[in-house]
């Protein structure tokens, strides 16, 4: 059996909702059934085989080739299996996913891992704004799982994030950890302005101090040796990421905030 592969015939002009194409939903379908499924593109519907060349038959292992950033909702509600995207992915990658793995060899759009519940997403590239966030009007962002971004993330990474982990090997944009409820975001690169804006709880772990300093609404709690850090860093060892090479450390400067709110969040900066 080889990976069930969807090769984009031509870059679509309109956005395509790819949510019907996940391992769980295709497992019982024949290739003809899959070809006959309809996808919403812009304000119309098109058959899958009008948009994609279909090859392979193993639905547990999906692959999108020639993907562009118009392909939204890839891995929507994924529960098991793996999806590989060669090219860029659009918005809402891995929304509501509960398990399995998505790998993007390219960039992903906004709302990557939106309200994700479990599993793993790896972006070998950059991710857009609102990684792991909640939809507009919703209170809970990501509630579990791990997101690894080898490049940079856009603004408001982890907005309303509730649990789980976002690991950014590059830089994070402005308002990283905004309105965060809990969970962990670790960043090897730099962070933008307004780090932890309106953050309630949770941890922002930085391996380098922000150039612009810590925001005024975070209070310095001093330098500390925190026992959970070596444990957490050791758990990164199993990841396919630069984080696996991170030398375990426990010494950090701890800043608590956002003190304009409940102020239970923390920014930990490696010393």
């Amino acid at each position, binding site marked *: 059996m080889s990976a069930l592969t969807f090769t984009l015939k031509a870059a679509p002009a309109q956005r395509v909702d790819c949510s019907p194409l996940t391992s769980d939903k295709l497992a019982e379908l024949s290739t003809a059934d899959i070809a006959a499924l309809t996808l919403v593109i812009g304000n119309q519907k098109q058959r899958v085989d009008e948009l994609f060349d279909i090859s392979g038959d193993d639905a547990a292992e999906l692959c999108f080739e020639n993907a562009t950033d118009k392909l939204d909702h890839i891995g929507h509600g994924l529960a098991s299996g793996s999806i590989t995207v060669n090219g860029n992915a659009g918005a809402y990658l891995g929304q509501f996913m509960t398990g399995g793995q998505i790998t993007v060899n390219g960039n992903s759009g906004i709302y990557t891992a939106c309200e994700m519940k479990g599993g793993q997403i790896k972006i070998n590239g950059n991710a857009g704004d609102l990684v792991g966030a909640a939809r507009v009007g919703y209170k809970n962002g990501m509630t579990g799982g791990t997101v690894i971004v080898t490049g940079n993330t856009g603004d408001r990474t982890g907005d309303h994030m509730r649990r789980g982990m976002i690991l950014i090997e590059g830089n994070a944009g402005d308002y990283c950890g905004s309105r965060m409820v809990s969970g962990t975001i670790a960043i090897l690169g730099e962070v933008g302005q307004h780090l932890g804006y309106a953050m309630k709880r949770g941890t922002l772990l930085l391996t380098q101090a922000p150039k612009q300093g810590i925001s005024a609404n975070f209070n310095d709690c001093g330098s500390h*040796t925190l026992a*959970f850090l070596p*444990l*957490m860093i050791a758990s990164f060892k199993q990841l396919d990421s630069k984080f696996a090479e991170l030398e375990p450390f426990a010494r950090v400067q701890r800043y608590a905030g956002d003190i304009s709110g409940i102020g239970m969040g923390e920014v930990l900066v490696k010393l």
Partner: protein
Amino acid sequence: MIINGVTIDPTFAEAFPMRGTRVIITAQNLEWAMNSAQAFTGFATSVIACGCEAGIERTLEPHETPDGRPGVSCLIFAMGNKGLAKQVETRAGQCVLTSPTSALFSGLEMDEEGKEIPLGKNLRFFGDGYQISKKINGKRYWRIPVMDGEFLTEENTGVRASVGGGNFLILAESQPQALAACEAAIVEMKKIPNVIMPFPGGVVRSGSKVGSKYKALSASTNDAFCPTLKGQTKSELSPEVESVMEIVIDGLTKEDIDKAMRVGIQAVCDLGAENGIRRISAGNYGGKLGPFHFHLQEIMA
């Protein structure tokens, strides 16, 4: 059966099902991990009055512990999950949370039944709202702010159906000889994993029988093995035996206790008749009370 002049009685030890768990206490150095572990396993010789039986299993090298610091593994047993949970929680709260630089981890995975009891789950409330939870590798941990920094504890620990009350009796010609034999046995038995000998130094001198002449008591001194009563009661002791001591073993499985009893009895027999050891016997209640029977001669066969 006679080994090196020591008679192995054709009898058996009778043991009971218990629920057990292992916890790992780490600290800045072994001394402080041990301070905490000794407190955690203190006053835990017998479920009759202590509510649990606990002991130190062994010390752990830094590479063996979850956080890479020196540590001590402790086993704790009680009659049921509820009682065990209560003992683990109160002891963790008073003896580990309080101990400088300590951290507390589960030393036992969840079993097939998925049974777990709280370890730091309720200690978190000591954090008065400042506690922070972190889920690492699927396990939840709690970070509780304390005066020396932060107390890190795992949320839950797994429990196992275990065996408590494995035992054997050492019958010797004098008190010092009986104790020396017990000491030799304990040294060997401590090398066996998954078992503890919960009594002080691993040895009991007040073995009990079921029942008493006093209505209020359910157990009383085992007069058949009391050397001073040889002429007063239906004694088990021959004229040469002047002192009897017992070693009680709790373990995670029957096989673990088998192993511990074998090395312990062997160590006693190695001292042999020339060191005043006469007989090895065991305590039972006729086999009606406990489902686990440890036949001495089978173990030593």
